[in-house]
Every structure is written in C-alpha cells, then in structure tokens.
C-alpha cells in the first residue's frame, strides 16, 4: 500500500488546505491569543504527528524483539528519527508562539522543559545505537531502549507537566483545546487537514529514509 501514490497526493492536498485555510480562514478572536491561535494547525498537529510516529516506532521495536527481522529495526529507527524531527519542530513552533503570547521564546515553563527532556531521551537512543558496531546487538539493545524510552515519555510530557503550574494552554484556567475556545471552523481545518496531513508527511519522509537505508545496505553487501 505504501508504494502507491494516492496517499502522497492526499497528503499534499491536506497540507495545502491546512496552510491556505490555516492562514486565511477565520478564527475566533481571543484576547492575548489573537491570531496566534492559528498555531493550533502547526504546533499541536506536529506534536500529534510526533506521538503517532513514536508509537509506530515502538510497535516496530516490539516486533523486532519478537521476530528478529532486521527490517523491523530499520523501520523503528527511522520512525523514531522522524518523530524527533517533529518534536524539534513542535518545540520551535511552540516557542515562536510563546514569544508573542508569553513574551519570551523560552521561559522554562514545565511544558517546554518536559518536551526538551523527551527529546533528549530520544536523542540518547540515537547515541546508544551509534555506540555499538555489532548489527544484531545494536538492533536488540536499541529496541529494548526504545520501548523503555517510550514508557518514560508518558510521565515526561503527559503527566508531570500537568501536575505543576504551567502557562501552557490547558492548565490553570488558560484557554485551550476545548469547546469554548476552538470553534467548528477551526476544527474543520484541524481534524481533516492538519493532523492527518502532518502525520502522512511524516510517514512519507520515513518511507523515503527507509528506502535510502535499504539501498545503502545493498551497496555495502
């Protein structure tokens, strides 16, 4: 299925829709937020794409441990890499947004810290892999660490930042992603356009990277 073209076309259409409707469409006018509410289509959707790619990555890691199929390991690695890219984009879009709403790019908010810790955990995955030369060993230990890192991702970005004071939307009575703040017009861009669009883009990038990796290995043999 992934070799087919139609989903790439769908992805481009969705992203075009997201960008055009995201910048031109009308949004609810909120104090402080003003037009920055449009960041929902980019920042929030990218985090979701990151979570989805990390979930796919961990599924492939579990599969590797069950089957010892080398291909599963490459899939897990490349999906984790794409997830890291989306994570970095999520932090950057978030901090640009924070510049215009909180007043500074970086204010050591628990959410910002949690996100950067989560990225560090996954960067350590890449370092760990590169520190081993034996292919089987690298794949097996990488898979073990990937599952472990995924399990630690939940307290770092989902639980702990919610337990302390944060300026981030969704806590302390700040406006967030609920019925009062986001109206039907925005939902019409977010759910059919932004979330699947960015996710499909992630899958596309990953499949290209996987093919590149496989070609590089073929040349080695």
């Amino acid at each position, binding site marked *: 299925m992934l070799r087919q073209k139609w989903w790439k076309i769908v992805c481009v259409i969705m992203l075009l829709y997201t960008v055009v409707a995201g910048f031109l469409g009308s949004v609810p006018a909120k104090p402080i937020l003003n037009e920055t509410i449009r960041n929902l289509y980019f920042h929030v959707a990218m985090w979701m794409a990151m979570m989805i790619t990390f979930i796919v990555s961990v599924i492939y890691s579990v599969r590797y441990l069950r089957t010892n199929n080398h291909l599963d390991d490459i899939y897990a690695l490349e999906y984790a890499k794409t997830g890291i890219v989306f994570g970095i984009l999520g932090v950057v879009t978030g901090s640009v947004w924070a510049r215009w709403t909180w007043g500074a790019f970086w204010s050591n908010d628990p959410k910002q810290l949690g996100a950067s810790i989560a990225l*560090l955990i996954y960067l350590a995955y890449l370092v*760990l892999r590169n*520190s081993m030369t034996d292919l089987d*060993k690298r794949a*097996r*230990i990488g898979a073990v660490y990937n599952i472990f890192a995924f399990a630690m991702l939940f307290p770092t970005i989902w639980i702990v930042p919610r337990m302390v004071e944060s300026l981030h939307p969704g806590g302390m009575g700040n406006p967030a992603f609920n019925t009062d703040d986001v109206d039907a017009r925005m939902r019409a861009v977010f759910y059919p356009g932004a979330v699947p669009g960015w996710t499909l883009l992630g899958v596309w990038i990953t499949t290209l990277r996987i093919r590149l990796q496989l070609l590089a290995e073929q040349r080695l043999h």
Partner: protein
Amino acid sequence: MLEVRQQYTFYGVLLYVASTIFVLHLAMWEPEGTVWKGLFWMMQLFICVNAVAKSFLQEGRERLLYFYTIAGARDFILSKLLFNALLMVVMSLLSLGLFMLMLGDPTTDAVSFLLISMLGGFSLSLVFTFLAAIAARAQQSSALMAIMGFPLVIPQLLLLNKASTIAFEHVLQGGLFSMILLIVGLDVLLVALAIILFPFLWKD
C-alpha cells in the same frame, strides 16, 4: 554480588558521600530549606550513578556468563533490582543522616522526609539498574549512563523534590498523595519493563 566480593567499592562510595557532604558543609554551612533539598536530591542522583552503575559495569564477561549458567535472566534482574534498591535505601538513610549532622536540619517534619527519601532512593536505583544493564552492553558505558540516565530521571527527581516540600512547610499540599502514587506507579512500571525486556539484553 560484586559489592560483597569487592568491598572497597562500597566503602569507596561511602567515602565519596561523606567527603562530598563535608565539602558542602565547608562551602555553605547551613543552607536554607530549598537549597538543602535541592542539594540532597542532587547528592542522591550522583550516589546512585556511582553505586548502582558499578553493579553491572564492573562485572567481568566471564562472571556474567557464570551467572547466566546458574540463574535465569528474570531471577538475575530481579535480584539485581532488589539488591540495588536495598543498597540505595541504605545510602539514602546514611546521606540523610550526614546531611542533618553537617548541614543542619531545616525540615519541620523529618519523618515524612525520611520516608520520601527512602522512596526516592528506591526509585532512582530501579532506573539506574536497568540503564546500567543496557549500558554494560555498549562501549564507553559510563558516558552512556550519563547520556541516557539524566534525562530519564529528571521527571522522577522533579516529582520527588516537589513531594518532599511537605517536610519543610506546614501548608497542606494538594496532590501529594497523587504524586506519591505516581512515583510508586512509575516504580512498578520500571520493574515490569525490566522483567520483560531484560531477557533480550541477556542472550549474547
């Protein structure tokens, strides 16, 4: 276990704890509550890296092979987890005693801080035991321990630090119970993961 055969490593860590606290004592006499608390958790982190990491990193390959022949992977990791947890609880108690002796006692509720520090030592040891098991498989394992370990323990340390505020202020802290529950839940998760995943690390 390694600590019984090479007792000097155990005493080495003890000496490390004592001398670090003594340096802190010389440098800051009696710091106020928040500083004291922060220093205490940092101390726990470094004790843990030093004491727990050794248990895997310094075992020779032959000896691991020997353990492999006499015990299953699950029993092995369980015993390691248990031993390291006990070791860290003892270390936490010792360093807490030294802290109170040398840096003064800013706590108002020493018993609850004692309990939280025991819980803290226990949970830190679980994370680092499992990480040491991973890192022992790779080259340059002590550097890897730091790279993998520090981001992973930050959430735990934040939680512990926040939970231990109870021992310093008389305010009724909301959410303390859920924080403790979360730490315990994290421990359970770690043990479960270690039991499931360690057999994969083990076969070589």
